[in-house]
């Protein structure tokens, strides 16, 4: 039942840390100083600084809410069931495997987009994701994986005039 409370605290901590990172590291390093600034509020660092301070304050408020909930210790039976469900989802190795597999596929998809081309990469990732999702019918896999990327290529290339990276299909489709 405390999963939700701790997650609030975790989000609070992450928000405060992020706000501090922006305020003390990213702004000094990433925002170029234009030199003389007549009015502080006109400077390029002013707005990001204001937002960072705002986020810091929100992080503090979230943290206070999380601590208050932990102390209050007034959790209904319904909330218990909800938390148990989310805990079950969080801890399921099976779901973690699928999720991790999907992330690896997404990363691989981006990496091979240029060398293989958008059509072939889309075909491969579609098949892989459909299999990962539990689809096993070969006809569905083949028709969708081949048909959709080609249909989108035809639309974007010949209707919208977008040059799609073709990769290995360059000799045939360019």
């Amino acid at each position, binding site marked *: 039942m405390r999963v939700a409370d701790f*997650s609030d605290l*975790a*989000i609070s901590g992450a*928000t405060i840390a992020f*706000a501090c990172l*922006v305020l003390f590291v990213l702004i000094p390093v*990433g*925002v*170029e*100083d*234009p030199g003389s600034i*007549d*009015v502080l*509020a*006109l*400077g*390029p660092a002013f*707005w*990001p600084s204001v*937002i960072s301070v*705002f*986020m810091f304050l*929100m*992080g503090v*408020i*979230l943290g206070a*809410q999380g601590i208050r909930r932990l102390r209050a210790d007034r959790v209904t039976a319904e909330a218990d069931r909800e938390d148990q469900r989310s805990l079950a989802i969080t801890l*399921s190795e*099976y*779901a*973690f495997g*699928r*999720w991790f*597999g*999907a*992330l690896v596929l*997404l990363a691989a*998809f*981006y990496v091979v*987009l*240029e060398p293989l081309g*958008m059509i072939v990469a*889309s075909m491969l*990732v*579609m098949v892989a*994701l*459909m299999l*990962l*999702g539990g*689809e096993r019918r070969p006809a569905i896999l083949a028709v*969708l994986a081949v048909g*959709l*990327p080609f249909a*989108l290529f035809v*639309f*974007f290339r010949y209707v*919208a*005039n*977008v040059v*799609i990276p073709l990769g290995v299909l360059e000799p045939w489709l360019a």
Partner: protein
Amino acid sequence: MVWETLQAALEIVLTVEAVFALFGGVIIGTLIGAIPGMTVTMGVALTLPFTFAMHPAVGILLLLGVYKGGVYGGSITAILIKTPGTPAASCTVLDGYPMSQNGEARKALDMALYASCFADFISNISLILFAGVLASFALRFGPPEYFTLIVFSLTIIAGIAGDNMAKGMVSAGIGLLLATMGLDLVYGTNRFVFGEVELMAGLNFIPVLIGLFALPEIINFYAKRFEARGDIQALAGGHATFAEFRRCFKSIFRGSVIGVVLGAIPGIGGAPSAFLSYSEAQRTSKNPENFGNGEIEGVAASEAGNNGTCGATLIPLLALGVPGDIVTAVILGAFMIHGLQPGPLLFEDNLDLIYSLFIGIMISSVFLFIVGKSAIRLFSRVALLPNQILFPIVLVLCVYGGYAVNNNLFDILVMMLIGLLGFAMLRGNIPAAPFLIAYVLGPLLEDNFRQSLLLSHGGLEIFVRNEICWIFWALTVLAVVLIVRRQRRWPRDME
């Protein structure tokens, strides 16, 4: 002059391309709205790249078709499988699903369609009547007035932050911060570019949008166990009759007016409008106890309130250049991509475009009726497309769409990274909508703030320089008070 402009507008709208775009948009929107998990925002964002090669009016009509179709389409799965296709359709569940369980699914779907089309029509009329008046008023706007207006618009964040305001504000903060990336417009210096040329123009709106809304749902699907989807209820029962429509007419009309009023105020949107319309219908009904148990008037009221916002949200967009909700924020992006800036000048420089949009949205109400009436059965079948097939399709659409914005693979990387951020936000129950609104309005807020200070040499009194500024400050305070009150009342209304 007016007649010539009208003629020019008709020449744009009454082309095969425009009619197909509008009709196709309504079909696509209804389809997307009817698929649980796919939002209208997602639908409009995915359709956006397809408009690049079109005439601006045709492209925007396509998006408006998707918008209107999507808002209606959300009611289909809300009624049939208790899964609202869009957040705005959540109120329709209350009586729509019980009607389905009572074997009156067809009747509920019919009434949802009739109420939607009528409210949409009223909303469109309101847009045509009031947008011009607002536009001439808006000509008096300078940077301080725009700043106060955008501050007022940002109250939308408080309205859509969900049950935890602080999380909504964190989400908005991330959006505001990301919007500061790129060249500083006043001094021309770099902000958060870190030597990366691709970042000098900032992060493109479309990959951020797609990454924020579409990808987290896809990633989240793989993070869950397989879920059995609810069986669709048989489309049993008779059609809704004219007598039933007449009985519900008062609630439909009232819901339409509520939708128009709330839709015209940036930040309120379809869902609160539907709930307000529903609660008013229940309050004035002779049989309030039937509400929640399959009362057809409940379906009519919620759908009227919901769809009544559709045309009205375009009033602030067209007249002031300020999006009234998330979808119109995307449509604002479409205007910009085509080199157009909605607002008073659009009424002076592109009146034929404005007229063509007015004519188009009136036609869209008719198309909505035709599409909804003839294809309820078909759409409910497509809504059952299994997620393991649906999500890979959506992913590939996202990648093509994200790439097409700038013909740049970097945008796909941005989309994926924002997708991961969106997934983390989803799991942490941090709403994504405030991020989007802040990302869209952030640069406008900062630019007008700094321009105002440049005008006043740093004096803050410029932000209260006339009655317009005061009105928007007052409206901001009023909106915040209403939102706080609504947040207190809503849980009681839902019970």
